[in-house]
């Protein structure tokens, strides 16, 4: 495919449906159609430009799988993991950043120069690790930097969710679940679900991403990723110990602050305000939840 010079078309935008598969399908389409789109963006975030043709790329799981497998094979598992992370990014420019990186990286691997490599005799010109990693390590390159930033912001968002997800114990006759509501910028639930499954494997839980309508579910045996709207959730009421524990946590948080060190700017930096609405300790004491 890469033998044919892609058509330089600054007036072309690819729109995809916002899913990781959709984004990978768009990358597939660019190769399949021998085109070089100037924009790859989510259909809902697209801002039409004068003289620009927007092409909606249908999501095709088989195409996405081929792109994914190709990247893993030719760029290695590390780059593949970073690519998969970046597909979950919520940034509007994540699509084009990924597309431009993939083009750049695959072209680099194709045009690899083994003349100066001392292992070239043995490797029979198979792609070696040095070649695979060349693009992703070139972090200052204009084709790589936006992708690198997108991946880093996804990593940071994962850490924020690991820190700030707060579970509530919901329980009634025959039903019991631990429920956490989170609002990350990027759709990171699939990336952090494993972390919570590892430590909370004894409790069935739901990690609900209200910003993207995705729920990570652990039923005690298996994990699921479910598309879920607010309306689809039917949750049991809070368990008997929930009020006491929330009160304990709020009390603990309140007394722990040292007055002489008061520094709310630092707190806002480390715990951005957008997370506060789902943090137990920053909710006002709900009268109904207080212990008698």
């Amino acid at each position: 495919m890469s033998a044919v010079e892609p058509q330089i078309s600054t007036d072309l935008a690819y729109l995809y449906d916002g899913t990781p598969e959709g984004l990978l399908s768009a990358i597939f389409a660019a190769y399949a159609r021998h085109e070089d789109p100037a924009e790859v963006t989510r259909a809902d975030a697209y801002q039409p430009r004068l003289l620009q043709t927007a092409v909606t790329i249908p999501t095709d799981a088989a195409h996405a799988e081929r792109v994914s497998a190709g990247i893993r094979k030719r760029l290695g598992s590390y780059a593949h993991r970073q690519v998969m992370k970046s597909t979950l990014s919520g940034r509007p420019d994540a699509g084009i950043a990924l597309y431009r990186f993939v083009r750049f990286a695959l072209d680099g691997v194709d045009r690899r120069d083994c003349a100066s490599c001392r292992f070239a005799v043995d490797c029979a010109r198979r792609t070696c690790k040095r070649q695979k990693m060349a693009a992703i390590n070139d972090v200052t390159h204009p084709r790589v930097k936006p992708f690198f930033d997108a991946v880093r912001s996804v990593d940071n968002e994962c850490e924020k969710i690991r820190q700030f997800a707060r579970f509530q114990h919901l329980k009634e006759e025959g039903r019991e679940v631990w429920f956490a509501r989170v609002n990350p910028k990027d759709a990171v639930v699939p990336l952090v679900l494993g972390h919570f499954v590892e430590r909370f494997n004894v409790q069935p839980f739901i990690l609900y991403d209200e910003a993207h309508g995705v729920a990570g579910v652990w039923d005690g045996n298996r994990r699921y990723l479910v598309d879920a709207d607010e309306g689809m959730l039917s949750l049991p009421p809070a368990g008997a110990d929930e009020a006491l524990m929330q009160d304990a946590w709020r009390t603990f948080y309140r007394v722990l602050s040292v007055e002489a060190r008061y520094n709310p700017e630092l707190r806002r930096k480390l715990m951005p305000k957008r997370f506060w609405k789902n943090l137990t300790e920053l909710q006002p004491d709900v009268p109904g939840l207080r212990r008698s």
Partner: protein
Amino acid sequence: MDVVQKLEILADAAKYDVACTSSGVDRAGKRGQLGAASSAGCCHSFTEDGRCVSLLKVLMTNVCEYDCAYCVNRRSNPDVQRTCFTPRELADLTIGLYRRNCIEGLFLSSGVIGSADGTTELMIRALSILREEHGFRGYIHAKAVPGTSFELVQQLGLLADRLSVNLELPSAQSLSLLCPDKTRQSVLGPMKRISESIAEDAESRSLARRRTTVYLSDARPRRAARAFAPAGQSTQMIVGATPETDWQILGLAASLYQKMQLKRVFFSAYLPVVEDARLPSSDHVQLDREHRLYQADWLLRFYGFNVEEIIDARNPDLATDVDPKANWALNHLDEFPVEVNTCPYETLLRVPGIGVRGAKLIVRARRQTTLGEGELRKLGIAFKRARYFITCNGAYLGRGVPFEKEALHARLSSRIDGGGHGRRADKVADGQLSLFSSVDAAGAPALDAAAALLPEAAPALEDGVAF
């Protein structure tokens, strides 16, 4: 009194302990058991003062037999309501909060109730309930109460991930002045034995892992045995309550890292929480000094600096207007500028404005391309500071400013950002020791006496720790 009220009292009493780290041990989750630990740790919340909340930091009890002058829980303080958790209450509370992802685990300290041994036994009971009944695999930091018999510390270490003995004051004289019930030996002795036990345990486990012996199946040692304090030990010093200089404090910290293999030494700016004639009564909290000490501590632990490079007896206090690394660079201008494209990683770490992350990125990026100014700016280092000390592909980037100590000092000095609120915002930038000149008449003689007792150069004692 219900659990929440107890928590309120016992968390309030524990908050002056600054250590709140859940780092240093990797323990994967296990099917059917609650919890896991990762070596990077995790901060679950941040209080209004911007400090992280990673562990449920509480005292077992705030009843205390000791009478340490600076401590809010001292025996002679009548203003504090005294209470005590039962081991089960504490274990259940920890599990309840852990299941809600509020904490990484438990930080358990205690006042001395009855005897040190009795107190430690209470703590062991609570930790056994957590580890054995609840099968808890999260992080536990336990404090070894001074004066506890070592058999009990051994048991405690097998239940906890990290142990700590608080040094509290950075010299034996200050310790005897402010903590009449503690001695140098009662603090350093347990610390030394804990570090020996950690080393011994790590060694025997590594031998067992090597499987040099062929065991019959029933004689094979059980793998499930817990490690002794796998996340190491830490300690804490109060800064500003006594007249020690930064040089003495950092020298002590460095020898603790070397001789006792401590994982962390924490510094805590002295906050007046109780009135005592022996203590400075000034409202001035030395938060900036604490900040500089931590910067120096980072240089020791992550940047490959020796303590002699950071501070010496002639200038025994850290500069307040520039950070310790910039200060070192200003005094060693003959080693700069360095070429970012070729110099080793260790040299990059010594450039002001380049940290561990920046240095690693530079090393990673320069394998692929030659770094110029544009590339360097993209790497997220503090280019504004680093430019005076580097060349990019042969070009010096700090043109316009003479390459002299005074001129560069003016460019590098910056105020420590302590936020726009609270006591830090309207602080006066006075010298560090001015605190002691404002001590009232009753306190002055005692402090002068302590200062006179301090040796000129801290001599190395038989166990190698200048204290």
